[in-house]
């Protein structure tokens, strides 16, 4: 019948009107800023720098590789490298950013900087209530404003943060395992040349004993020398292991003397 | 001839003059509306309530709108260039206007002698008008109704024919 639809519609609207006073799910308004809807876990607004531990300068993960600065589409990141170095999470000495500015008014929240960072140093924050009355400097965040702790990262993106932490812990464990094995090999190597010095087979002078070792070291691992003792011990360990299964009761002393020799020999070649 | 009468009469005459003297055609139509309103107020001043309100309802509410629609739908509202207010045949127009004014003035002055004084004017109520329309004047009423219906149907047919003809 004509008009029936109108009456049904009026009844529906009246139900809405009355229901909005009574039941919560009819009234879907969220009275911001007194009430807030929690953001989703994958929400992203603007980047921040993660630091481990309690000291933001010491624990900053960023090594100023400038990949995010180059990849940022609107070029809102500005990095200046430092002159000195500080140890990173595995203990290796890395440079760090002396200046890391992000102009948040330019940032378009594309997350590319997060995707390309190899050091899990920059992540997306979820805070959006950043309005300020300072037109020019108010939205330019410097290093200190950007650095937020790993606990904060865990709070806003729990699953991501756990994943990242697991990965970093794994890498750290690998590096530590390598270091331990290198240390063990270096200890064994130190014992071996000492044994070989006393043994009549290898009774040449230390430089001579060092020379084939150094030659083998050079042949087996012609790699660039690093300043760490662990890496030198690594090379010394690999050299005898590669060609033959010589018993190598290593001792720490001859590899140390062999190292500068091996170094001088390789650099000589 | 009270002060109110002179005021309303001045308004009506001003509206009428503006309706012929203004350049923009829609302005002229609006000035005509003012003249209609002045006429309605004169009717009301003479205590002819029905005539006054019917004047507003019909003339301002319908005829003025009709005039404006006709202007807007048939020609552009831009002022024609180069044409002055007076047309080329203004002499003949002046003569005819003077003749009409003379006839009406003579009629008014002739009947002025027979008019009763202001205090004796009978007040006509709407009921009396209704009774007269349904009693004494029912034939003119029906003929006018037929005429208006014919005009309405004719307008619809003319409009429809235009659309069919244009196709």
């Amino acid at each position, binding site marked *: 019948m*004509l008009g029936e639809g109108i009456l049904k519609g*009026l009844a529906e609207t009246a139900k809405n009107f009355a229901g909005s006073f009574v039941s919560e799910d009819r009234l879907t308004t969220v*009275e911001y800023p007194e009430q807030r809807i929690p953001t989703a876990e994958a929400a992203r607004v603007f980047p921040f720098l993660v630091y481990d531990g309690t000291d933001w300068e010491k624990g900053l993960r960023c090594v100023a590789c400038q990949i995010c600065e180059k990849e940022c589409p609107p070029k809102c990141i500005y990095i200046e490298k430092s002159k000195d170095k500080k140890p990173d999470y595995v203990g290796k000495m890395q440079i760090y950013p002396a200046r890391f500015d992000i102009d948040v008014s330019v940032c378009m929240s594309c997350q590319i900087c997060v995707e390309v960072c190899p050091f899990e140093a920059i992540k997306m924050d979820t805070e959006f209530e950043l309005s300020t009355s300072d037109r020019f400097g108010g939205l330019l965040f410097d290093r200190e404003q950007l650095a937020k702790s790993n606990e904060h990262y865990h709070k806003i993106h729990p699953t991501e943060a756990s994943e990242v932490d697991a990965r970093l812990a794994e890498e750290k464990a690998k590096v530590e395992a390598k270091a331990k094995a290198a240390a063990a090999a270096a200890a064994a190597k130190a014992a071996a040349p000492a044994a070989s010095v006393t043994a009549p087979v290898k009774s040449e002078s230390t430089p001579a004993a060092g020379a084939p070792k150094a030659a083998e070291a050079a042949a087996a691992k012609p790699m660039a020398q690093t300043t760490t003792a662990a890496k030198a011990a690594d090379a010394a360990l690999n050299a005898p292991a590669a060609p033959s299964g010589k018993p190598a009761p290593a001792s720490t002393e001859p590899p140390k003397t062999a190292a500068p020799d091996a170094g001088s020999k390789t650099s000589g070649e | 001839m009270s002060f109110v009468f002179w005021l309303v009469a001045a308004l009506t005459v001003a509206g009428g003059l503006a309706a012929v003297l203004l350049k923009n055609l829609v302005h002229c139509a609006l000035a005509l509306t003012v003249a209609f309103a002045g006429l309605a107020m004169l009717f009301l001043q003479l205590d002819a309530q029905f005539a006054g309100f019917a004047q507003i309802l019909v003339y*301002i*509410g*319908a005829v003025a*709108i009709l005039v404006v629609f006709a202007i807007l739908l048939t020609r552009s509202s831009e002022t024609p260039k180069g044409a002055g207010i007076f047309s080329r045949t203004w002499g003949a127009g002046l003569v005819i206007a003077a003749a009409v004014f003379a006839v009406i003035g003579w009629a008014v002055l002739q009947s002025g002698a027979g008019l009763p004084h202001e205090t004796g004017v009978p007040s006509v109520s709407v009921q009396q008008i209704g009774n007269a329309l349904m009693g004494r004047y029912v034939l003119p009423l029906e003929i006018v109704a037929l005429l208006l219906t014919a005009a309405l149907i004719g307008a619809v047919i003319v409009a429809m024919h235009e659309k069919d003809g244009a196709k």
Partner: protein
Amino acid sequence: MTEKADQLFVLLKDWLVSFLPGNWQGVAGVILGVIGIAAIYPTLFALAVLMERKGLGRMQNRIGPNRVGPFGVLQPIADAIKSLTKEDVVPVNADKTVHFLAPVVLVVVAFMGFAVLPAGRNMVLVDMDASLLFYFAMGASTEVSIFMAGWSSRNKYSLLGAMRAVAQMISYEVPLLLSSVVIVMMTGSLSLVKIVEVQHHYTWGFPHWYILTPWGLAAFVMYAIAATAETNRSPFDLPEGESELVAGYFTEYSGFKFALFFLGEYLGMLSISGLGTTLFLGGWSAPFSFLEWVPSWIWFFSKVMLSITVLIWVRGTLPRLRQDQLMNFAWKFVLPMTLLNLGVAALWRFMGEGWLRWIVCSAILIVVYVVAGRTEMRRKHFGPRSYRYAE
């Protein structure tokens, strides 16, 4: 006591007027009445705006404005301050005089309509013999102002909106008048005071309101439809549609002039509700005879605000009608029904008292309504569309 409360405003006016010498008293009384109207109806306008925003919000499952004042009751004041302090932008090509006069004419004409509404016992500003005709004359003058607004902006879209609005108002003017004519016929007078007095009788506690008769109910429904269209209210608000044509005929208005248009529109709503109350709902008379002790003006304003509530309710429910649907509805359905209603009312009068006339008249109206409804709602044949292009 109730007599005093009922005649409160009349007694107040008499007391104030008594301070003046004899021949100034009439004029002073009228001026006081005008001041009363100018004070009460804009307050009701503010209340209506507030009800609309909060009510529409609740109907749409959201809270309306609630920041200004407790529960947002001071929102109209904030709106007023905003309108008054906004910059008044007039387009360069606009016709300045007409652009200025259009909202003025609208508000003047809207206020004039209140002069004849009886707001309570002995509380009408002007008691004329033909007051209903005066009211409709003022309503017809609104169209001129809308046209002026649309044309003077020199904006094609405003002009189009104004044309649509005027066409809509003219076509719904006829059903409005015809449904009121039924009331006039049954009362025998055009005077609104007399119409309310006739409805002020009670039988077994029930009042003699015209809405409680079959032809009165039909006339009320058609009056309501026509009134919604006359004031350009949803679902007939295509001319001022906020998502069509920007804002229709008041696109080019800002600041105070826009506020005047807004005021004029809501005053039109209030005054047409007032007229509907007077004609159909018994004006200032109480619903039941035992409720007579409540002052009459309270009944009148309650009924007016109830009508406003229904208008807001309908706005929140129905989608907008297209222009051709609107016009079809007016000329092809509402107008024939009003004519039929006229005949049924005459039949009612000639059948004399008794229960038979109720049955016969109701039967005729219902049967015709259902049959006409079926033909309107019959599935139209969706053949290939033929387009008419502009020449």
